[in-house]
């Protein structure tokens, strides 16, 4: 999982973390075990992805709910703020 600069305060500055998980939601939970609090920055307490936060698996934007986004060995998950421009 690639960590955006704004969240690296949670990961002691690491920009990449290797995790084992079967889907994106499980990966976020695993990430939070290692770096408490970081999951809350990506999803709210109802488990919904925050507005203007995008999750990509490899280069594909995840549009489905996070638990339905299955992962395969070697996948790279990116968390990025959307451009939110105009």
């Amino acid at each position: 999982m690639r960590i955006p600069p704004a969240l690296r305060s949670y990961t002691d500055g690491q920009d990449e973390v290797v995790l084992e998980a079967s889907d994106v939601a499980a990966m976020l939970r695993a990430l939070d075990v290692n770096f408490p609090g970081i999951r809350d920055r990506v999803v709210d307490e109802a488990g919904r992805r925050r507005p203007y936060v995008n999750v990509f698996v490899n280069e594909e934007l995840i549009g489905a709910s996070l638990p339905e986004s299955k992962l395969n060995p070697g996948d790279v998950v990116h968390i990025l703020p959307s451009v939110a421009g105009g």
Partner: protein
Amino acid sequence: MARSIKKGSVVVAIGTKKGGFLFHSPDRKKWSVAGPFMEGGSVYHMTLDPRDGRTVYASAPMGSEPWGPAIYRGLAGEEPKATRAAPKFKEGSDLSVSRIWHIEAGPSKAPDTIYAGVEPAALFRSDDRGDTWHDLDALNYHPTRKEWQPGGGGLCLHSVLVDPRNPRHLIVGISAVGAFETRDGGRSWTTENRGVRAEFLPNKYPDWGQCVHKLAWDASGDGSIFQQNHCGTYHRGPDGGAWTEVTKGLPSDFGFPIAAHPTQKHTAFVAPLVGAGNRVFPKGQMAVWKTTNSGKAWRRLTKGLPGPGAYLGVLREGMAVDEADPIGVYVGTNTGQLFASRDEGESWKMISDFLPPIFSVTAGIAQ
């Protein structure tokens, strides 16, 4: 404490649309500024903890990007850092905190306790300076909640009064739901809106549903409270019960902030605007109004304030007082000017211009 802020200085903390600032002065004549902090982020509230005069708390989005709301903490003059966690609702509630409107210091005997008022309206308490948070269930999941309606700024809990005589006694204000009071530390809450108008509802005096804009303790020390509402200005006496409307003598029944004198009883300041449909000062003249008798009479204070031709406004957290003698009064505008009075409102001086729109103003003494 950063060396740049001298002990004993008055510190005016400003939350703006683009960062937080600390104005500080040992004599309230010449001001210095530290910041911006949380640069680029919308700082909804920023306050110097009055219990130690050193710690600054602020609320802003995490990292000024879309990572959700955060509480920031740091020593005055230094860049605050996000605490380990922000307030959040219980999983399964289907509620999520979108914005933190207000941070309030807890009782003096519990120096690590702070409260946070959030949107959608709820109250949270931290007993470790903001690193973990407790959800105050009896209020946050109140039986009336499903019918709560937002005000123009959202469904926000913006006022938190902690009784200095009894830390289990709190009063909160929610737009547009009204005032709630607990006397048992938050286990149970009563609606406290008798006598307060709600002109936008079929029943003008409902049990709840009023649009309270800001609450402030009267310095009388007996539990009396001032309220600025969407529909009038009010005072409630020491024994609770119904509010008395004290709008007469003011130019309108609409305004946002209300700041009470910290030591002189029955004394408060308000900043009435034209009305809900035109949130600027009447007749293009910025004015602060002062009462010294619980609102029975009001006096208009304009010396040094802009106008005529000044079409600006003040948001609900936009006014504060310090505890110097005589007290200072501070008003921040939604067009980025900060005005200060060091003679209890009799005369004013602009101490900063061209700030981003000002969301909040608080004042304290650096220790």
